[in-house]
């Protein structure tokens, strides 16, 4: 537990931390609403930049909750590492599955394109009604 601070200081710390989280959350919401503005539609890189900033702020919020509110910052280093290092595996999952998602999209688009190519009648083969009339003639 937080024996590093006096009781009064740690109480103050909670309200300060709450204020910080509130401000970061509000900033995120404003950035997100700004991202959807029509005047930005032409500038894709600005939208991506804002999205990146929102993600960074969210990760900061996660860090703050884990290290201050959950007191991970005051645990033994080994405990923190044994919980946090496995999370790094998710970086691989993110890259792999998001790539996979875009691959599905590309495949689907390719199939749609191929479906739209007009099939040319194969040369030198009977077409369907000729087959049936032949069959009828016996």
């Amino acid at each position, binding site marked *: *537990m*937080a024996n590093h601070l006096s*009781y009064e200081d*740690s*109480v103050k710390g*909670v*309200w300060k*931390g*709450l204020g910080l*989280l*509130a401000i970061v*959350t*509000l900033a*995120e*919401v404003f*950035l*997100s*609403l700004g991202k*959807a503005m029509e005047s930005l*539609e032409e500038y894709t890189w600005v939208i991506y930049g804002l*999205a990146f900033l*929102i*993600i960074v702020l*969210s990760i900061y*919020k*996660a860090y703050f*909750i*884990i290290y201050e*509110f*959950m007191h991970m910052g005051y*645990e*033994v280093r*080994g*405990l923190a590492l*044994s*919980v946090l290092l*496995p*999370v790094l595996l*998710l970086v691989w*999952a*993110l890259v792999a*599955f*998001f790539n*996979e*998602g*875009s*691959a*599905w*999209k590309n495949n*689907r*688009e390719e199939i749609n394109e191929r479906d739209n190519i007009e099939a040319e009648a194969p040369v030198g083969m009977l077409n369907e009604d000729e087959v049936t009339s032949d069959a009828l003639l016996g």
Partner: protein
Amino acid sequence: MAEETDILIADEHQADTGSWDGGDQKPFKASYGKLMMWYFLLSDAFTFAGFLIAYGALRFSSPSWPVPDKVFATAPFDIHNTIFGGEAPLIFVTFMSFLLIISSGTMVRAVQEGARENKRGVVFWMLLTVLGGAGFLGCQAWEWTNLIATEHMTVSTNPFGTYTENGFYLDPETGEVTDEVVKEGETYLLHKAGVSHGEGHEGEEHFEYPTVAGDYAGFQIDDEGFIHRKYVVSETNEVKLQDFGPTAFGALFFGITGFHGFHVFTGVIFLLIILINAGSGVYAARQNGYEMVEKIGLYWHFVDLVWVFVFLVFYLL
């Protein structure tokens, strides 16, 4: 009864120091319960990460995706109409986030009071935490009800479509091209014929849609009663119908926010149990600085932590 409780406390007290069979040295200088809570939370984080990554993969695989500002633009008591004039993007869900964040703060206060062995303080701050959690659940219940009953989104139906081309609407009555613009990337909600949908309709000139399924001049009505307006694509002059959005959206939304809501729900139950125990003096007798409060605190902060990411992917991006 009192005797029984004493034995129980003695047992648990002993368990707190003796669970590691390696003598007095504790791995990571943490108690058994606290360490196991951390590893449980780690595994739970992977479960949530799996769901959220699935959301990301499906979103990447879809040619269009509903814009959150458009989907989550309503609030209770008609606030989105009376105060925000039709749409209140993300306002309600921001309020929900604040409820969870604040309840996380009150939880830290409860743990601090526990460390000072202050029973009244623990009970008071835990009670506030429970209220925050219950408030969040109430908000989520409203959000779901609105999406299901008013906007007709289900696990398998997603009436929030998004245009992938620019163009103009056809007039519903005559089928002629109007100057009402269809914009690429804009999300629309398919309405049901003859049902109130809780949104102001501007520019539709109060056209009364028939309730019988069929193909009409400027729109189609499907078997479920959804109105699909027709529009002409600027580039190709092709007439198209408003379509449903990606089907996975409904399943992902209800699945993931539901799983998180279930965590909040169990969290509230656990908090209540530990609140009652703390109030009845069980933890005071253990004299270990209300460690149980600390453990449930870890769980509660984790629920808040997960919401940070659910909020990020569903509402902010």
